């Protein structure tokens, strides 16, 4: 199994599509894996742990049908193999309460979904610059 660079959980297929485009525009060699709901995400995360494949970054949509982004975050932090992966919560909400609880649950960052494609590309750019370059530095 190919190790994804970014593992993204997003139920909105439109936004998933935008993300796909944006990521490719930022760097077309980046490998993005997207799943649509919490249960599927859980299965995938389990597989990562078993096959010892570690994504470089996990993006979680906060509001998911069924299991929420916070539930997944907690799940990730409970699995020793996965718990060191940077996790970013990604949501349309800019409610301070959501931000606060995400950080409390152990998110590395909280991002409000950018408005429009151009802003999204900018956002992915900076995420890539920060997390991937840092990742490289750490290695």
């Amino acid at each position, binding site marked *: 199994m190919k190790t994804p660079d970014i593992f993204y959980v997003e139920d909105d297929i439109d936004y998933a599509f935008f993300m796909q485009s944006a990521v490719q525009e930022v760097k077309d060699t980046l490998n993005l894996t997207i799943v649509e709901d919490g249960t599927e995400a859980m299965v995938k995360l389990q597989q990562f742990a078993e096959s010892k494949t570690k994504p470089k970054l996990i993006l979680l949509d906060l509001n998911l049908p069924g299991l929420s982004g916070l539930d997944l975050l907690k799940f990730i932090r409970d699995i020793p193999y996965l718990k060191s992966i940077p996790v970013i919560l990604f949501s349309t909400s800019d409610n301070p309460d959501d931000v606060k609880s995400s950080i409390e649950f152990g998110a590395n960052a909280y991002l409000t979904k950018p408005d*429009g494609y151009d802003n*999204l590309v900018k956002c992915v750019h900076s995420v890539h610059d920060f997390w991937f370059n840092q990742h490289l530095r750490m290695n």
Partner: protein
Amino acid sequence: MTTFSVDLTNCDREPIHIPGKVQSHGFLIAVDKIDFLIAYISENTNLFVKTSAGNLLGKPLSTINAFLDQLAPEFNIEDLLRLGIIRKSFDAISPHPVIINKNQYYITIADSGNNFLLEFEPATLQYDLQSVIGRSASGMLQGKSVSSLLKGAAVEVKKLIDYDRVMIYKFLDEGHGEVVAEQMNEDLEPFFGLHYPASDIPKQARELYKLNLTRLIADVNKEDSPIITFLENKPLDLTNSGLRAVSPIHIQYLKNMGVCSSFSISLISHGELWGLIACHNYSPKFIDYKAREGAKLIGQILSSALEYRQDAEDSEMVDQFKDIATALTEQLNRDKYLIEAITGHKKTILDVTKATGAAILFENNLKTIGTVPADEDILELAEWLKQTNDESVYYTHRLSEIHSPARKYKRIASGILVCTISKELGEMIIWFKPELISTVTWAGNPDKPATPEENGLLSLSPRKSFEAWSEEVNNTSEKWLPEEIASVLRIREIIITDVNKKANEIRQLNEKLQSAYEELDTFSYTISHDLRTPLTSVKTYAELLLRNKSLDDSARKMLGRILTGADKMNFLIKEILNLARVGRSEITFETVNMQLLLNEVATEVWSAFKADKAELILGQMPDINGDKTMIAQVFTNLVSNAVKYSSTVEKPTIEISSYIDGKEIVYTVKDNGMGIDNRYYDRVFELFKRMDNVKEIEGTGVGLAIVKRVVERYNGRVWFESKLNVGSTFYVAFKNI
């Protein structure tokens, strides 16, 4: 013989039942109950029989038989007496006709202590009265109301006894009386409506009127005849005597009035002396026993009719009050506001009693109907009542004597009836009755003039003038009737039930409103949130499409329009989210550095609107307590508005300042822009409300709604002053804590 001299100090104790005299149109014999010996006899007996009174004194009653022309040979006056004794009543045998010296007389027998009274009086009536009385009674009873009944009675009695004047005299409070009906010869001056003081008919006289239902004084100018006896210090009790002589004071009183004969019939209602049928004749006039009995019967019929009619009128009044109560209940159920419900319709709270004015103090309002004192006097009275009155219903008919400030409006309100709705809040209803001053016209000066005698003692002389004499009965209103008080208690119950019901309704409405508000906040929040996701898709797809180099200009233009629309919508959603958040978030208090905050806000606003030409003037900016984000929201909106709506003038000036007013810190944001039409004053803070003159300027109509919500959550106030084309000043007052 009794000698009792009457003066002012004892006139109400004059022993009129033992005068020692009889009227001289008849004669009286009293026999001992045991031996039937003549113990007392009137001196004038010799004018009727052929022997002197002295000769008969001490003799057996049977002696009298010798002077009677026998109607039946076996007649014996002692047998007549015994018959009465056996029957235990003399009613059936009185009057007994006898003939003395060929003249007809009636004997009537009555009880008096140890003696029997035998009275002889002339029988003058030659025909049977029965049918006349029957017609009189039915004529009288045709009257439906009490007043027509009384008038009818006066007419019928006058027909029966043919006196010059027949009056119906009614006893009012405290013993004085009023002529309430009258029938008289046309040449006489009417007494109708006149009042007579209580002293005109003293208390013990009123008691006698209850025992002797008729009373004849045949001729005031005829000398009375003394009663002689051998018994020392045992005056004969003449309570039950028809011939009983009249008090010299009363004789004088009648003489002063020019009356020669007087006849009265007692009217008894519910066991009390209701009044009299008082008959005056201006020449001597004797009334035959049977005519007197006929008049008595009419009096009794009138008494019971009065009792019935008065009860009927009372219950009619009660029914009327109940009808009013029912009407008011309906009005209260239908109307939203209590005052409107009980004063705004045809039937009002004033109709609950016979008052002439009413005042309602409720929810800090004063509403009056009818004739009432000035508002400030009512408020003063209400305050006094609040302090001193613990009763749910309080009433007096002499207010100014209890509460001296009431003196100045005693003409309007000498009587008050107060019903408390809430003691704590001083809520009450007050009914007013005027002073009775104008309604009392006395027959002559009611104060009995006391004239000094030669010996220096005051002596009583009944007044001589009976010309109408008005007297001011001060400080007193008509009394409150038990029916009125019952009616007020009934209304109080209805009002209190209604007040409680409405309070409950308001409380429930409040709870509903609150939960509706919360729901609305949640709803707004959720819906805005959910709207943003598809909106983002729209926008993003449009942007993606724009990257396609093969598109022509018109397609690009349309995509641009889609983006503009999406941005506008996004902004609106953000604003609604902000508004919803005001209701959802917890209230926190921290010290907000206003200088810092306002500078940040200004910088942000100036750059957002590119307001380079606008001048900003900052005044005093003391710190306030609140949530920094929310306060920032308030000022961002106010300052944005100021900048936006002054952008059309040549030199926009925005001034932010503050002042301290008591317990409030008031911030002002002033501009010199286009201003707000005052007609829309109340609508400015409404959600999505934008004025006609600002169509050109971008806005959502949410900003000031947010300002108002935030300020109100902090128990503050927001308002504005504005003039079209001059500018607006918005004021925000925060509690200074």
